């Protein structure tokens, strides 16, 4: 499985994590991870239940925990700690980072919400 990172590094300022794979590395910031949490609290149980998470520009990561062989659980300082990010999902977030982010920003605008 090439998707499994070798190291997962939480930065000193708790604002991003770096996934170091054997041949590349990717950085994902806390706000991006928080608003795209795979938790049912965010995604719901079907696409129409998806919640828009906003005002998370200053969110910080308070902890990372290994889940079995397949995922990590990321805890945030706003109390959210139910998101289990699989290796596959983390890779998807990185690969499609720009399009996911653009979609998020335009949805914020549409609903009149702010990042801060």
């Amino acid at each position, binding site marked *: 499985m090439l998707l499994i990172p070798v190291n997962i*590094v939480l930065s000193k300022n708790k604002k991003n994590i770096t996934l170091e794979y054997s041949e590349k590395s990717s950085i994902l910031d806390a706000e991006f991870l928080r608003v795209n949490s795979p938790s049912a609290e965010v995604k719901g149980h079907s696409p129409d239940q998806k919640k828009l998470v906003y005002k998370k520009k200053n969110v910080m990561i308070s902890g990372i925990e290994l889940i079995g062989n*397949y*995922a990590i659980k990321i805890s945030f300082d706003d109390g959210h700690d139910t998101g289990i990010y699989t290796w596959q999902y983390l890779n998807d977030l990185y690969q499609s980072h720009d399009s996911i982010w653009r979609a998020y920003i335009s949805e914020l605008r549409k609903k009149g919400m702010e990042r801060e």
Partner: protein
Amino acid sequence: MSQIKDQVIDKLKSIHITLNGKKSNIIDEKFIDDVVIANKKVFLSIKADKSNIEKYNQLKVKVENELSKIDGLDKISVSLTSHNDNQLDKTQSNKSSRKGIDLVSNIIAIASGKGGVGKSTTSINLALAINNLGYKVGILDADIYGPSIPKLIGESKKPKVSDEGKILPIIKFNISIMSIGFLISEGTPMIWRGPMVISAINQMLNDVDWGDLDYLIVDMPPGTGDVQLTMAQRVPMSGAVIISTPQDLALIDAKKGLEMFKKVNVPIIGIIENMSTFICPHCNKETYIFGKEGAEFEAKKQNVDFLGDIPLEVVIRETSDNGNPILSSNPEASVSKKFLSIAEKIVSKVSVSSSTKNPNIIIE
């Protein structure tokens, strides 16, 4: 403080042994695990070989005698630890701060999609077979709703609690065993919802003093539910073995089990075909009651290893019902040899595949 340590090391160096005809001492030959000295107390352990325990007991007495000659030591505690080479590095990494299941080197799930295919019988016999190969083995009966292990080993006594408040597993046939069945009486049904089951599983993982086992065999309940998910999330499993009968109906469910383990990135060690064939004790005619070689075919199709087949034999059923598994009551029987050959395959596959490493989490 360090002065005392030097004295201890000097004393240990003065204990000579002869190894392969060469004279040496126990420090240079790395017989001693970490030496800890605190408050005039010295703790150390001697790495012992299980097959020659008498010799190591003598060595232990010798070490105690030598160390007692040092002035200023209140207490000398020497223990024997058994080990095998491939787990040496693991047990040495800060042993004291780890607990419960963390000292176990390899956790192997025995699973099936469907009930009644012989998971528990296979689990206990595989545990015994791996123990026969010289490894320290435990078995965790994760089937909360239908624990079968107590019956299979003929044991129903309640486990004791250690001074540290840990549950001590039942030791039988040289295996550490834990089951919810030890805690409740045989006829009591567990009428529990998911969260209760999850906390029971967590307790059997965290609060049981498993010790430094080489292998922990987990007898999974059938299906793909709460227990399976909890296990997959709570512990890094080395691999899963799927049991199936050759019957199509069982194989459909076995496939679901396979897919589940793939989803949570637990390596599939392989498939065992149970109840593969029946040899009539009267006429010696072989009958494929559930069809022929179904599991082997499915293993090929799914691109996983086929570990072997276990026939339907009345002796397996009888020994199971009597609480004395075939591997213990008749290790020379032909089915026992089949279990042993499967155990060898499992052990060799796990030692290779455990190189698939989980990431290090680094907090800057």
